[in-house]
Protein backbone atom coordinates (compact mmCIF):
# COMPACT_ATOMS: atom_id res chain seq x y z
CA UNK A 1 0.00 0.00 0.00
CA UNK A 2 1.23 3.48 -0.84
CA UNK A 3 2.39 5.19 2.33
CA UNK A 4 1.68 8.63 0.89
CA UNK A 5 -1.99 7.65 0.95
CA UNK A 6 -1.77 6.38 4.52
CA UNK A 7 0.26 9.10 6.20
CA UNK A 8 -2.56 11.70 6.09
CA UNK A 9 -4.81 9.27 7.99
CA UNK A 10 -2.21 8.80 10.71
CA UNK A 11 -1.58 12.54 11.02
CA UNK A 12 -5.24 13.36 11.02
CA UNK A 13 -6.18 10.70 13.61
CA UNK A 14 -3.40 11.97 15.81
CA UNK A 15 -4.50 15.61 15.51
CA UNK A 16 -8.27 15.09 15.77
CA UNK A 17 -8.10 12.63 18.67
CA UNK A 18 -5.59 14.77 20.56
CA UNK A 19 -7.78 17.86 20.11
CA UNK A 20 -11.04 16.12 20.96
CA UNK A 21 -9.72 14.24 23.96
CA UNK A 22 -7.28 16.96 25.04
CA UNK A 23 -4.58 14.40 25.71
CA UNK A 24 -1.62 12.97 23.81
CA UNK A 25 -2.08 10.04 21.43
CA UNK A 26 0.40 7.35 20.48
CA UNK A 27 0.40 4.78 17.73
CA UNK A 28 0.39 1.44 19.47
CA UNK A 29 0.47 -0.82 16.46
CA UNK A 30 0.52 -0.73 12.69
CA UNK A 31 0.04 -3.90 10.67
CA UNK A 32 -1.12 -5.23 7.33
CA UNK A 33 -4.24 -7.33 7.63
CA UNK A 34 -4.62 -10.31 5.38
CA UNK A 35 -7.54 -11.97 7.06
CA UNK A 36 -11.12 -10.72 6.84
CA UNK A 37 -11.82 -7.75 9.03
CA UNK A 38 -13.50 -8.51 12.37
CA UNK A 39 -15.39 -5.78 14.15
CA UNK A 40 -14.23 -4.98 17.69
CA UNK A 41 -17.18 -2.98 18.92
CA UNK A 42 -18.81 0.20 17.63
CA UNK A 43 -17.57 0.77 14.10
CA UNK A 44 -18.14 3.44 11.47
CA UNK A 45 -17.32 2.96 7.81
CA UNK A 46 -16.52 5.66 5.27
CA UNK A 47 -16.27 4.85 1.57
CA UNK A 48 -14.21 6.69 -1.01
CA UNK A 49 -14.77 6.67 -4.75
CA UNK A 50 -12.74 8.22 -7.54
CA UNK A 51 -9.01 8.13 -8.09
CA UNK A 52 -8.74 6.58 -4.67
CA UNK A 53 -11.31 3.93 -3.91
CA UNK A 54 -11.93 1.84 -0.88
CA UNK A 55 -13.10 2.11 2.67
CA UNK A 56 -11.91 3.11 6.09
CA UNK A 57 -13.36 1.52 9.19
CA UNK A 58 -13.04 3.31 12.46
CA UNK A 59 -13.56 0.87 15.30
CA UNK A 60 -13.59 1.00 19.12
CA UNK A 61 -14.79 -1.36 21.82
CA UNK A 62 -17.94 -0.37 23.70
CA UNK A 63 -16.11 0.90 26.80
CA UNK A 64 -13.92 3.16 24.70
CA UNK A 65 -16.92 4.30 22.65
CA UNK A 66 -18.72 5.33 25.84
CA UNK A 67 -15.70 7.25 27.07
CA UNK A 68 -15.18 8.94 23.69
CA UNK A 69 -18.86 9.91 23.44
CA UNK A 70 -18.91 11.29 27.00
CA UNK A 71 -15.75 13.23 26.42
CA UNK A 72 -16.89 14.72 23.13
CA UNK A 73 -20.45 15.43 24.25
CA UNK A 74 -19.33 16.97 27.52
CA UNK A 75 -21.87 14.90 29.45
CA UNK A 76 -21.87 11.37 30.83
CA UNK A 77 -23.12 9.01 28.13
CA UNK A 78 -24.36 5.59 29.19
CA UNK A 79 -24.73 2.29 27.37
CA UNK A 80 -28.46 2.95 27.00
CA UNK A 81 -27.75 5.99 24.80
CA UNK A 82 -26.90 3.59 21.99
CA UNK A 83 -27.72 6.07 19.23
CA UNK A 84 -25.63 8.84 20.74
CA UNK A 85 -22.66 6.48 21.16
CA UNK A 86 -22.85 5.35 17.53
CA UNK A 87 -23.31 8.94 16.37
CA UNK A 88 -20.23 10.00 18.33
CA UNK A 89 -18.10 7.27 16.76
CA UNK A 90 -19.42 8.14 13.27
CA UNK A 91 -18.73 11.83 13.81
CA UNK A 92 -15.20 11.17 15.04
CA UNK A 93 -14.60 8.97 11.98
CA UNK A 94 -16.03 11.69 9.77
CA UNK A 95 -13.67 14.28 11.24
CA UNK A 96 -10.55 12.12 11.03
CA UNK A 97 -11.28 10.88 7.54
CA UNK A 98 -12.47 14.30 6.36
CA UNK A 99 -9.22 15.89 7.47
CA UNK A 100 -7.19 13.17 5.71
CA UNK A 101 -9.24 13.61 2.57
CA UNK A 102 -8.52 17.33 2.72
CA UNK A 103 -4.79 16.67 2.73
CA UNK A 104 -4.99 14.11 -0.08
CA UNK A 105 -7.12 16.38 -2.25
CA UNK A 106 -4.77 19.28 -1.71
CA UNK A 107 -1.98 16.91 -2.84
CA UNK A 108 -3.82 16.40 -6.12
CA UNK A 109 -5.78 13.17 -5.55
CA UNK A 110 -9.36 13.60 -6.61
CA UNK A 111 -12.08 11.47 -5.14
CA UNK A 112 -15.38 11.63 -3.36
CA UNK A 113 -16.00 10.86 0.28
CA UNK A 114 -19.36 9.43 1.31
CA UNK A 115 -21.12 10.04 4.63
CA UNK A 116 -20.13 7.63 7.42
CA UNK A 117 -22.37 4.68 8.09
CA UNK A 118 -22.50 2.38 11.06
CA UNK A 119 -20.67 -0.84 10.28
CA UNK A 120 -22.82 -3.52 11.82
CA UNK A 121 -21.67 -6.81 10.33
CA UNK A 122 -19.23 -8.79 12.43
CA UNK A 123 -16.90 -9.39 9.55
CA UNK A 124 -15.78 -7.45 6.50
CA UNK A 125 -14.31 -8.56 3.20
CA UNK A 126 -10.77 -9.86 2.98
CA UNK A 127 -8.15 -7.56 1.61
CA UNK A 128 -6.85 -8.44 -1.82
CA UNK A 129 -3.64 -8.01 -3.74
CA UNK A 130 -4.60 -4.58 -4.96
CA UNK A 131 -6.65 -3.48 -1.97
CA UNK A 132 -4.52 -4.18 1.06
CA UNK A 133 -5.82 -3.28 4.47
CA UNK A 134 -3.65 -1.51 6.96
CA UNK A 135 -4.72 -1.58 10.59
CA UNK A 136 -3.64 1.17 12.92
CA UNK A 137 -4.15 1.15 16.65
CA UNK A 138 -4.04 4.49 18.45
CA UNK A 139 -3.66 4.51 22.21
CA UNK A 140 -5.74 7.30 23.75
CA UNK A 141 -6.72 8.30 27.27
CA UNK A 142 -10.16 6.80 26.55
CA UNK A 143 -8.88 3.46 25.24
CA UNK A 144 -7.62 2.02 21.98
CA UNK A 145 -8.95 3.30 18.68
CA UNK A 146 -8.57 1.12 15.58
CA UNK A 147 -8.54 2.35 12.04
CA UNK A 148 -8.65 -0.16 9.21
CA UNK A 149 -7.76 1.42 5.89
CA UNK A 150 -8.22 -0.47 2.62
CA UNK A 151 -7.62 1.73 -0.39
CA UNK A 152 -6.87 1.25 -4.01
CA UNK A 153 -5.28 3.92 -6.16
CA UNK A 154 -6.36 4.23 -9.75
CA UNK A 155 -3.67 5.81 -11.85
CA UNK A 156 -5.03 9.09 -13.09
CA UNK A 157 -6.14 8.80 -16.66
CA UNK A 158 -6.79 11.58 -19.07
CA UNK A 159 -10.52 11.11 -18.77
CA UNK A 160 -11.15 14.67 -17.83
CA UNK A 161 -13.38 13.59 -14.99
CA UNK A 162 -13.73 16.56 -12.73
CA UNK A 163 -12.83 16.47 -9.10
CA UNK A 164 -15.87 15.85 -7.04
CA UNK A 165 -16.17 17.82 -3.87
CA UNK A 166 -16.77 15.67 -0.82
Amino acid at each position, binding site marked *: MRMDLIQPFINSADAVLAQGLESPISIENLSMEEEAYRRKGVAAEVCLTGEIEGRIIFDVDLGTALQLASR*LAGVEVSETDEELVSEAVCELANQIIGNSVTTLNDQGFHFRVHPPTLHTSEQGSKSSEDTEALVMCFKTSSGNVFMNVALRYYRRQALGHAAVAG
Partner: protein
Amino acid sequence: MEKFAPVKRSEDGQPVRYLIVDDSVFARKNLARMVETFGGQVIGEAGNGVSAISEYERLTPDIVLMDITMPQMEGIEAAEKIVRDHPSARIVMVSSVGYQENIVAALQRGARHFVQKPVKPEVLYEVIKYVMRDDGTAARGAGAGA
Protein backbone atom coordinates in the same frame (compact mmCIF):
# COMPACT_ATOMS: atom_id res chain seq x y z
CA MET B 1 -17.62 24.88 27.83
CA GLU B 2 -16.04 28.30 27.57
CA LYS B 3 -18.36 31.33 27.67
CA PHE B 4 -18.18 34.13 25.13
CA ALA B 5 -19.50 37.67 25.06
CA PRO B 6 -22.96 37.27 23.51
CA VAL B 7 -23.33 38.23 19.85
CA LYS B 8 -26.73 39.93 19.37
CA ARG B 9 -28.59 41.23 16.38
CA SER B 10 -27.94 44.96 16.21
CA GLU B 11 -31.41 45.76 14.86
CA ASP B 12 -33.27 44.59 17.96
CA GLY B 13 -30.67 43.32 20.45
CA GLN B 14 -32.13 39.82 20.23
CA PRO B 15 -29.98 36.65 20.13
CA VAL B 16 -28.69 35.58 16.72
CA ARG B 17 -30.97 32.80 15.40
CA TYR B 18 -29.30 29.71 13.96
CA LEU B 19 -30.30 26.86 11.69
CA ILE B 20 -27.92 23.92 12.11
CA VAL B 21 -27.62 21.48 9.22
CA ASP B 22 -25.66 18.25 9.65
CA ASP B 23 -26.55 14.61 9.06
CA SER B 24 -25.01 13.74 12.41
CA VAL B 25 -27.27 14.33 15.41
CA PHE B 26 -24.16 14.31 17.55
CA ALA B 27 -22.54 17.08 15.49
CA ARG B 28 -25.75 19.14 15.60
CA LYS B 29 -25.92 18.84 19.37
CA ASN B 30 -22.29 19.90 19.73
CA LEU B 31 -22.73 22.90 17.44
CA ALA B 32 -25.92 23.86 19.28
CA ARG B 33 -24.10 23.80 22.61
CA MET B 34 -21.35 25.91 21.09
CA VAL B 35 -23.59 28.63 19.64
CA GLU B 36 -25.49 28.81 22.90
CA THR B 37 -22.24 29.80 24.59
CA PHE B 38 -22.12 32.69 22.06
CA GLY B 39 -25.56 33.80 23.28
CA GLY B 40 -27.22 32.40 20.15
CA GLN B 41 -30.54 30.63 19.79
CA VAL B 42 -30.95 27.46 17.75
CA ILE B 43 -34.33 27.78 16.02
CA GLY B 44 -34.08 24.75 13.78
CA GLU B 45 -32.09 21.73 12.69
CA ALA B 46 -31.93 19.72 9.49
CA GLY B 47 -30.20 16.47 8.56
CA ASN B 48 -29.73 17.02 4.83
CA GLY B 49 -29.72 19.69 2.16
CA VAL B 50 -33.34 19.21 1.13
CA SER B 51 -34.64 19.78 4.67
CA ALA B 52 -32.22 22.67 5.05
CA ILE B 53 -33.90 24.51 2.18
CA SER B 54 -37.40 23.99 3.55
CA GLU B 55 -36.34 24.88 7.08
CA TYR B 56 -34.68 28.04 5.81
CA GLU B 57 -37.90 29.06 4.03
CA ARG B 58 -39.92 28.39 7.16
CA LEU B 59 -37.63 29.97 9.74
CA THR B 60 -35.44 32.56 7.92
CA PRO B 61 -32.60 32.23 10.44
CA ASP B 62 -29.85 34.83 10.82
CA ILE B 63 -27.13 32.24 10.24
CA VAL B 64 -27.05 28.73 8.78
CA LEU B 65 -24.27 26.38 9.87
CA MET B 66 -24.13 23.87 7.02
CA ASP B 67 -22.27 20.58 6.75
CA ILE B 68 -21.09 19.53 3.27
CA THR B 69 -21.14 15.75 3.05
CA MET B 70 -24.75 14.74 3.63
CA PRO B 71 -27.19 12.24 2.12
CA GLN B 72 -29.89 13.29 -0.38
CA MET B 73 -28.46 16.72 -1.10
CA GLU B 74 -25.02 17.94 -0.13
CA GLY B 75 -24.42 21.21 1.66
CA ILE B 76 -22.86 23.16 -1.19
CA GLU B 77 -25.83 22.53 -3.47
CA ALA B 78 -28.26 23.43 -0.68
CA ALA B 79 -26.34 26.63 0.04
CA GLU B 80 -26.49 27.59 -3.62
CA LYS B 81 -30.24 27.05 -3.77
CA ILE B 82 -30.86 29.02 -0.57
CA VAL B 83 -28.70 31.95 -1.67
CA ARG B 84 -30.31 32.00 -5.12
CA ASP B 85 -33.69 32.69 -3.51
CA HIS B 86 -32.37 34.64 -0.53
CA PRO B 87 -29.24 36.55 -1.54
CA SER B 88 -28.77 37.95 1.95
CA ALA B 89 -28.64 34.47 3.56
CA ARG B 90 -25.61 34.05 5.78
CA ILE B 91 -24.36 30.51 5.37
CA VAL B 92 -21.24 29.20 7.07
CA MET B 93 -20.03 25.83 5.84
CA VAL B 94 -18.86 23.55 8.66
CA SER B 95 -17.17 20.42 7.40
CA SER B 96 -14.28 18.09 8.06
CA VAL B 97 -13.57 18.08 4.34
CA GLY B 98 -11.80 21.38 3.88
CA TYR B 99 -9.71 21.13 0.75
CA GLN B 100 -9.25 24.18 -1.35
CA GLU B 101 -11.53 23.18 -4.21
CA ASN B 102 -14.35 22.52 -1.78
CA ILE B 103 -13.92 25.83 -0.01
CA VAL B 104 -13.77 27.74 -3.29
CA ALA B 105 -16.86 25.91 -4.60
CA ALA B 106 -18.79 26.75 -1.42
CA LEU B 107 -17.80 30.42 -1.50
CA GLN B 108 -18.55 30.73 -5.20
CA ARG B 109 -22.01 29.36 -4.59
CA GLY B 110 -22.79 31.92 -1.94
CA ALA B 111 -21.47 30.62 1.39
CA ARG B 112 -20.00 33.41 3.50
CA HIS B 113 -17.32 31.42 5.30
CA PHE B 114 -15.88 27.99 5.95
CA VAL B 115 -14.95 26.36 9.26
CA GLN B 116 -13.20 23.02 9.37
CA LYS B 117 -14.18 20.28 11.81
CA PRO B 118 -13.28 19.56 14.52
CA VAL B 119 -14.65 22.99 15.29
CA LYS B 120 -12.77 25.13 17.77
CA PRO B 121 -15.30 27.35 19.59
CA GLU B 122 -13.04 30.40 19.45
CA VAL B 123 -12.69 30.03 15.68
CA LEU B 124 -16.43 29.68 15.10
CA TYR B 125 -17.08 32.64 17.40
CA GLU B 126 -14.81 34.91 15.36
CA VAL B 127 -16.42 33.69 12.13
CA ILE B 128 -19.91 34.42 13.48
CA LYS B 129 -18.87 37.95 14.47
CA TYR B 130 -17.33 38.46 11.03
CA VAL B 131 -20.33 37.11 9.17
CA MET B 132 -22.78 39.20 11.21
CA ARG B 133 -20.58 42.30 10.87
CA ASP B 134 -22.84 45.41 10.92
CA ASP B 135 -25.90 43.29 11.69
CA GLY B 136 -24.50 41.90 14.91
CA THR B 137 -22.91 43.27 18.05
CA ALA B 138 -20.81 41.62 20.72
CA ALA B 139 -20.19 43.21 24.10
CA ARG B 140 -17.57 45.92 23.79
CA GLY B 141 -13.99 44.70 23.94
CA ALA B 142 -15.22 41.16 23.77
CA GLY B 143 -13.30 38.49 21.97
CA ALA B 144 -12.96 34.76 22.04
CA GLY B 145 -13.13 33.45 25.55
CA ALA B 146 -13.99 36.86 27.00
